[in-house]
């Protein structure tokens, strides 16, 4: 390979189908924002015992489902007609996978909202502290993973992979706490189970955020960091 300065390169050519990729990217960004706002609203509905807000979350899930279908269609069309390579190919593949993760985030938000409707009819089991904390971490993870998509900041995405353990740990702690509630006061069982599932949903949302972060690292660097112990422990890409 030459070590000399590389020859001057002409400016990139605008291709007539570049707009298709831009649309694809913007749909993925929209999906990310919609999924995050669904989670945020579901948690607010839970904390405020606001059944009507929870119903809105449940109704809005269809929007995410439709975006996922649209992104899949656009990705398949682009691969079929434009034969993408390199970053573009990674973008299309990652876009399809990330949209699936985001659709699942939406499903978890819907599940939380349904439980919030049921819980709103009863007095709170205890003040909501850990669940909003978990939700905040999961939402921050989702935001950082999507930031990596917007500006290629892989350091943030790597941090997301490390933070997953934090959410797992709160989930386990809540599980133990809610189990004690149930043992001590059988009258709390139904509410405690709803909260356990909500906690599990948030843990899954964090998992999806981690998947998206890994996908965005692959998009930016072309390196597959899934299931890498090194990334989980040290937060670095070899």
């Amino acid at each position, binding site marked *: *390979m*030459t070590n000399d300065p590389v020859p001057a*390169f002409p400016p990139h*050519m605008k291709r007539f189908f570049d707009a298709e990729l831009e649309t694809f990217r913007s749909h993925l960004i929209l999906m990310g924002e919609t999924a995050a706002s669904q989670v945020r609203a579901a948690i607010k509905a839970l904390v405020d015992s606001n059944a009507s807000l929870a119903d809105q979350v449940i109704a809005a899930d269809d929007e995410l489902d439709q975006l996922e279908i649209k992104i899949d269609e656009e990705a398949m069309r682009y691969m079929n007609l434009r*034969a993408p*390579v*390199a*970053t*573009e190919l990674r973008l299309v593949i990652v876009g399809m996978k990330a949209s699936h993760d985001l659709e699942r985030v939406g499903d978890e938000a819907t599940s939380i909202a349904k439980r919030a409707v049921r819980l709103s009819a009863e007095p709170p089991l205890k003040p909501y502290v850990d669940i909003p904390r978990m939700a905040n971490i999961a939402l921050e993870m989702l935001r950082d993973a999507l930031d990596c998509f917007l500006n290629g900041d892989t350091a943030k995405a790597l941090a997301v992979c490390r933070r997953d353990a934090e959410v797992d740990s709160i989930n386990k702690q809540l599980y133990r706490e809610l189990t004690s509630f149930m043992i001590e006061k059988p009258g709390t069982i139904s509410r405690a189970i709803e909260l356990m599932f909500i906690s599990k949903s948030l843990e899954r949302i964090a998992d999806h955020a981690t998947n998206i972060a890994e996908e965005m690292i692959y998009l930016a660097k072309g390196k597959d960091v899934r299931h890498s112990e090194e990334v989980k422990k040290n937060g670095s890409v070899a």
Partner: protein
Amino acid sequence: MNLTMNKDVQTPPSAGQPVSAPNPAASRPAAAPAPAAGPAFEVKDLNLWYGTHRAVQDVTLQIPARQVTAIIGPSGCGKSTFLRTLNRMHELTPGAYHTGTILMDGRDLYGPGTDPTVVRRRVGMVFQKSNPFPTMSVAENVLAGLRLNGVRDKALLRERLEKSLRMAALWDEVKDHLHKSGISLSGGQQQRLCIARALAVRPEILLMDEPCSALDPIATAKVEELIHEIKREYTIVIVTHNMQQAARCSDRTAFFYMGKLIEYAETQQIFMNPSNPQTEAYVSGRFG
């Protein structure tokens, strides 16, 4: 002509070497794949000038044996010129000269003891435009190189004719028309005829300069299938403007730009995650 045997046509056998003497083209066994040893070519600091124009600049790379190496790059980037240095074809162009070294199987391709005609027998070439000998039949075209090398054994010629045409995926289409003129075939068939002609002399290396650029998708698929089939036995270097063809056919890809080698890596890396932004711009069609 379409294979590099043309020098053989013009060069009489050297004194003391009878025409009937066994020659590599006739005697090379029918391709039991030898174990892949070192690289087929080791190119070091290669520069090539056409007069004052430096068409290839400081190129260093190794071309592995029994693999397909694709060379890509925009028009005028030096890829065809580079290809021609691998069998000394550029020496036929007035004013062309080179510096640097090319080793073929560890021996200097341009060393004083190296006969260009032998080089071109070992390194066959297929050109962009098919060019069968117009006055020859299909069979005569395929066997031209062998006959010029003095092969007279009819059984061997027959066997080589069929084998070469089969390898070029043309046998079934022409077996009943072997005595028809080579130029009576379709464009795609003519190109495969030229490939069969190049294969008939059993070169070790096949250079292909945009072999499919004038072919329809079916003929292109047949040539690509052929490349896939014969790469167990041959080292193939293919220049192509078709990115997908490079991605489909080759094991390694070299990207040239303005005479320089910009990136050379496994084909999957070039098309999945190139390390040079210029390569990425070119392979994704954002160049221009």
